[in-house]
């Protein structure tokens, strides 16, 4: 199995990956609190970006309301923890289930009724907004006033309850992101991955080859939703407060698609590279501005917007494909945007 996993992957890529992974493992030992927070954010976006990428990059369905799954994951586990004392790892199962059902409903409604492209994107936005306003009135989880997790002291790390210092969250996220990376790699090379790409390229032609496109699109939505909800679990336990206005807001949805788009939609490394690039540069900008004495809320977002604009106009496939070419990592002429 290991052999098949590594089949076709160039030695240089493997060495590069191992180096990066090793660096990430020892990073908390050298990083100060601020840098650690940044790394956590990067990993968060890398993970969520990977999950979104499955739906869009692999199966070609543009979701602009992915914050729904983050929010549902967060609220489900938070509610179970606060109201019933159920730990997040068990709560995660419930969170994934809720997200999967939600995704299934959205997917079913969209695909059964032939809603695609722009309309699908708008449908996802509408659902997210619906939940945002709905949760504002959902008193059991705090409504618009917010939902708060009890913050204990962080003298010890409680992995079971996800209570602890940032380093603990960092390692959990690192494990999640690595796991997602491997999962995406497996999926991309699998039969389902091929079918997804066929659907993404030309759904009608895919159907003519016997692919039940409805079923596979549903798989993409449901897997993507489930994966995304897990990042919501972490969100809840890391920040310890949840506000519908923030967590379901469309800017959240846009935020989590920036990394994969800038990195490269449909590629394996894209979301990760995008996350590092985007967050890294944004923080660098932040630091630079602080040093110069500017304080403009919204400047970071303007920067993101400009980055996005630049990538969309100049590097439509994202940063990774041309970077891959420059590093001469292509095994042969084929460049199906696989890794």
């Amino acid at each position, binding site marked *: 199995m290991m052999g098949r996993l590594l089949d076709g992957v160039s030695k240089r890529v493997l060495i590069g990956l191992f180096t990066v992974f090793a660096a990430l493992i020892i990073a908390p030992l050298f990083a100060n609190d601020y840098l650690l927070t940044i790394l956590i954010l990067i990993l968060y976006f890398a993970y969520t970006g990977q999950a979104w990428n499955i739906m869009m990059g692999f199966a070609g369905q543009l979701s602009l309301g992915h914050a729904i799954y983050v929010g549902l994951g967060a609220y489900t586990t938070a509610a179970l923890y606060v109201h019933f004392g159920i730990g997040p790892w068990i709560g995660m199962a419930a969170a994934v289930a809720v997200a999967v059902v939600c995704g299934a409903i959205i997917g079913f409604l969209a695909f059964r009724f032939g809603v695609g492209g722009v309309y699908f994107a708008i449908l996802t936005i509408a659902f997210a907004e619906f939940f945002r306003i709905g949760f504002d009135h959902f008193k059991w989880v705090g409504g618009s006033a917010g939902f708060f997790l009890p913050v204990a002291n962080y003298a010890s790390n409680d992995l079971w309850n996800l209570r602890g210092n940032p380093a603990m969250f960092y390692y959990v996220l690192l494990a999640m992101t690595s796991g997602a990376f491997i999962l995406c790699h497996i999926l991309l090379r*699998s039969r389902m991955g091929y079918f997804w790409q*066929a659907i993404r*390229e030309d759904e009608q032609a895919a159907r*003519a*080859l*016997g692919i039940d496109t409805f079923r596979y699109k549903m798989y993409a939505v449901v897997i993507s939703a489930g994966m995304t909800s897990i990042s919501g679990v972490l969100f809840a336990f890391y920040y310890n407060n949840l506000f519908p206005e923030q967590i379901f807001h469309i800017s959240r949805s846009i935020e989590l698609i920036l990394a994969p788009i800038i990195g490269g939609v*449909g590629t394996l490394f894209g979301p990760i590279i995008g996350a590092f690039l985007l967050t890294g540069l944004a923080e660098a900008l932040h630091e630079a501005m602080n040093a110069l004495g500017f304080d403009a809320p919204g400047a970071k977002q303007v920067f993101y917007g400009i980055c996005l604009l630049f990538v969309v106009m100049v590097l439509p496939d994202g940063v990774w494909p041309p970077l891959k070419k420059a590093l001469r990592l292509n095994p042969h002429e084929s460049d*199906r945007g696989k890794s």
Partner: protein
Amino acid sequence: MTTLLTVDRVAKNFTGLRAIENVSFSLDAGEIFAVIGPNGAGKTTLFNMIAGVFAPDAGTIAYCGQRIDGLRPDQVCRRGIGRTFQIVRPFPALTVEDNVMVGALLRRSDMAAARRRAHEILSQIDLLDKRGLRASALTLPDRKRLEVARALATDPKLLLLDEVMAGLRPTETDRMVEILRQLNQSTGVTILLIEHVMRAVMALAQRVLVLHHGAVIAEGAPGEIVRDPAVIQSYLGVEAAG
């Protein structure tokens, strides 16, 4: 000789336009059957009904004894009918090999087996040396062959080819004819083709159906129908009869 496909009195209207009217024919396994006729005669409509793109308004279509009219395109394919599109639709970002693999994966879940099958078909169709190229980088004749290869990878018993010779030069047409003939002889795949290129029809088809304004005006061996006066008048022109 088993009957593979039976089209029985099918009709199709498109808001006010009678596209197909009372068309019936049947195919035996292993045959090569051509459907010809002027543009707008309803050939692609007929194809689309067999392939499941839409259902006939009247009549039935039976494949291996079972009704298939009204099934979805992917269901029709799974039953064993492969098709190509008049305007080729490769998966542009995927390689030639991956394109064909998508087809091969229909009946195989093992990736290695699918890849082997893809290579097998690619060498039959003479595209093996280009398997690493992106489909978007291929020339039109190569794309046409890719389209056929991909459909073949689904192991169809019946292959529907929609104007697969269109846009090909005579040498390329001959090559494609040879490939199709080989496939028919070695694998026994039944071929139903829509064609305008009479050179290919005469070389390949064992029987020909002629459509005009959605109705059958002649059916028979190629030699017969080129001399059929109705066919000459509506489509071929006097020169074709030679």
